[in-house]
């Protein structure tokens, strides 16, 4: 999993390149936590265009980000997600809480 980040004002745009699954969960969590530790960052946009699959551990990472951003009065948005992963997010009812946009 490669993770790259760019910032635009108070928004961090994150590109995941690889699957968001249990084996790389610690690396992803550490990367996201270091971004969220910046007080200036209120919003996250995560680009899923290079993600084929997510598992329940990966979903919890996204939920943790959402919960942290709620405390910062910010938002999270998932961009360029494939239809299969979009359905997983939808089944988990996450689309009721933040924007999830297809490719």
């Amino acid at each position, binding site marked *: 999993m490669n993770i790259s980040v760019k910032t635009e004002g108070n928004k961090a745009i994150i590109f995941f390149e690889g699957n968001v*699954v*249990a*084996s790389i969960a610690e690396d992803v969590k550490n990367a996201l936590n270091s971004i969220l530790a910046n007080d200036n960052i209120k919003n996250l946009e995560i680009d899923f265009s290079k993600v084929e699959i997510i*598992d329940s*551990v990966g*979903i*919890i990472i996204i939920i943790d980000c959402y919960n942290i951003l709620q405390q910062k009065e910010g938002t999270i948005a998932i961009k360029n997600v494939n239809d299969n992963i979009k359905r*997983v997010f939808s089944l988990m009812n996450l689309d*009721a809480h933040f924007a999830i946009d297809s490719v």
Partner: protein
Amino acid sequence: MITTSNNIDVFFETEITAELENIDKIDEKVATVLTLSKLKRITFVIRLLLREALLNAVLHGSKRNAKNKIKFKLFVEDSYVCLKVVDAGKGFNWHQQLLDSFKAVQGDVISKIGGRGLFLMKAYADEITYNQRGNSLLLKKSINL
């Protein structure tokens, strides 16, 4: 060994140590074969199911102890793709966990309750069967070509 043919003869059997990286290896092999087979249409679902089944076996059944072994088998029977995962753990109260798994995704507030893996397996599999002890899981997904 994985074999494929025109009449969907897909079979894969292996034994792994209880390490998360081994889930990725199995997923990669299965994805490659399914993508090239008549089962391509349900590749994502099978990958998700095998990942969640193995994840439970590694994290809960085996307590992520690499000394513990997990058996994995993928095969086609009748009109179903079947996934069988057996760990050496003491099992769990799967009756209650299956019931509780819905709580993980209900309500206005995103819950921290676990059980999302079981929820996903229930959502995507057509049949989900545990043995009484709870250390052997059989998932079935209809081929419906």
